[in-house]
């Protein structure tokens, strides 16, 4: 098992290298660079910037160099000094900008994952064990609606109702006074007060699908002979269902932790724009639009790393819950 984990971690290194190359190449693909869009923006506001000033900035950011030189300088900075480069737009080091947002995004994603599991597993199990009953039909209809409606639409609807009916402001992850404040216990409490609405919205979108998955998987397992033998042993229905078929039906949940987290991060992006949350989404979107390459590149690399690590975690989890997958050399 340990050898397996070590091997998987070693394989992650070339994967991450490839990801960083592709991310960087992608950001370089649109014509021009940060300065072209910056200058265009200034000119549109009637500000005429001197050519010398542009050249000086181009020199400072090393934008005149070939792409691969830029890439290696950036990677060297990350690997040797933990320096993710400079954000041109914010005039700040990237590392100062992203960590809190990354952290909040991950917290939000994990929170919504736990919420949707907590809802989806019991509901799915009930649906499967009471197949074709009224509650099963009701649950099926609800979950089809849930699957069909995207998270940002839920965000808009909930925001509308909270604002007009309850007079609540549901935007943001912090109250005004804690927005730029350093981390204190009060700030954590404030975050918890705000996080549940966006967490729930992201959860709704995914819960629906997970209810369907649980139901379908469990229906596949529930008529297998090992379930019947467990019943013939004299176990109560509840205990035998939760101990045997549910355990097997849960496998897809563990095996998809990796990309299901990544999925959630994408739905969080859109929703964050709508609800103006301090997650990676809005900042990343803006960085991509303005071609703020180190900032955008860092986001891409970090989020992809999360997916790769998530996949590793889900493989380890799966090997832990399903003995058939454990590899013994």
């Amino acid at each position, binding site marked *: 098992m340990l050898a397996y984990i070590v091997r998987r971690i070693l394989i992650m290194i070339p994967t991450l290298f490839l990801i960083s190359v592709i991310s960087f190449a992608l950001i370089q693909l649109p014509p021009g660079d940060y300065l072209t869009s910056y200058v265009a923006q200034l000119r549109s506001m009637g500000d005429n910037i001197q050519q010398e000033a542009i050249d000086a900035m181009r020199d400072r950011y090393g934008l005149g160099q070939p792409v691969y030189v830029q890439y290696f300088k950036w990677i060297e900075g990350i690997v040797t000094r933990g320096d993710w480069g400079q954000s041109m737009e914010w005039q700040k080091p990237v590392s100062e900008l992203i960590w809190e947002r990354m952290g909040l995004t991950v917290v939000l994603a994990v929170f919504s994952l736990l919420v949707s599991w907590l809802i989806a597993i019991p509901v799915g199990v009930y649906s499967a064990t009471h197949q074709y009953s009224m509650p099963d039909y009701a649950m099926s209809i609800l979950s089809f609606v849930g699957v069909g409606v995207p998270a940002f639409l839920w965000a808009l609807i909930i925001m509308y109702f909270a604002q007009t009916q309850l007079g609540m402001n549901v935007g943001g992850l912090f109250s005004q006074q804690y927005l730029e404040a350093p981390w204190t216990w009060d700030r954590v409490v404030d975050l918890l007060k705000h996080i549940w609405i966006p967490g729930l919205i992201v959860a709704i979108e995914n819960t629906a699908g997970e209810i369907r998955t649980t139901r379908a998987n469990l229906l596949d397992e529930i*008529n*297998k*002979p*090992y379930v*019947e*033998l*467990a*019943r*013939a*042993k*004299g*176990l*109560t*229905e509840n205990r035998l269902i939760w*101990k*045997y078929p549910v*355990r*097997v039906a849960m496998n897809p949940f563990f095996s998809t932790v990796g990309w299901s987290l990544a999925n959630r991060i994408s739905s969080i992006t859109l929703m964050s724009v709508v609800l103006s949350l301090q997650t990676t989404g809005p900042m990343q979107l803006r960085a991509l639009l303005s071609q703020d390459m180190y900032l955008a590149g860092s986001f891409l690399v970090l989020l992809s790393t999360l997916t790769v690590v998530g996949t590793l975690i889900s493989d380890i989890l799966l090997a832990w*819950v*399903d*003995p*058939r997958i454990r590899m013994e050399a």
Partner: protein
Amino acid sequence: MDNTLLEVKNLKTYFFLDEGTARAVDGVDFEIKRGQTLGIVGESGCGKSVTARSVLRIVPKPGRIVEGEITLHRLVAKQDGSKMTDLIRLTEVDPMGSLMRGLRGSEMALVPQEPMASLSPVHTIGDQIGEAIRLHQKVSKAEARAKTIQMLELVGFPRPKQRVDAYPYQLSGGLRQRAVIAMALSCHPSLLIADEPTTALDVTTEAQILKLMRSLQQELGMAIMYITHNLGVVAQMTERVIVMYMGKVVEEANVDTIFHNPLHPYTSALLRSIPRLGMKARERQRLASIRGTVPDPYAIPKGCSFHPRCDKKIRGVCDQQEPTYIEVEPGHKARCVLYKQ
């Protein structure tokens, strides 16, 4: 002393499906004595397995017992040490209630058809056997484990102390079936319901398992309801036999009588379809088979359900009236118009 263990009277278990009602078990009567082995023989789909599941009260949906009585004569120890029998009408208790759950696994245990699929793939065999022990006996985890190892040893598991923590996928088919038998025997049932326990195994393993069940039966004094379509196994394992066709018992007799003096045309046809070793070349002929196939369960033929395939059918009689089940000679019953009381 009352020697009867299980009585089944006019049992009818139907499946209510969209396509119609499938009469899987349609009026079955039999009796099992303590320590006796009863063989239930018949083609696929004749209702053998559903009969077993009806007795255990685990008929899967949309199946339901619609008529009949199943009575278990349970031996209960009285305070003065003597034993008395307690009659439990299984057809009248709640199938998932505590009384029925207490009987399942302890008084009546099942050895199912497919050892490959009958154990949970993600739990160790020790966990699954120990669970049955802990469910019916008040023992600690450590005692249950010790007992599990003891049971595995009894069914001939090599190195039971190590293998108790094995997962089913690490074991061969024969060992898995031994594990299932160990589980069934762990609470000393008075009735073991073996539903084609050796169909999925090769003949060598089959012979070992059969021998094992036979010797354990003598050791523990339990009765066995042995369901099979293999007549060779019936001859080797059982004392009494019932032959089923389309949800009905067509013949019942002692095992020797069934083989040497079968009454029902279906039984004789089944016996003719067994190949024999050492048949001389000039006597050799094509192996007989029963013509046709089992009719569709939604369209049971009128009259005797076997008449379309029967070579002794009487036109105007067999396709009109349903034969009654009668005792032709003492201890030998048949359901056919050819016989009178």
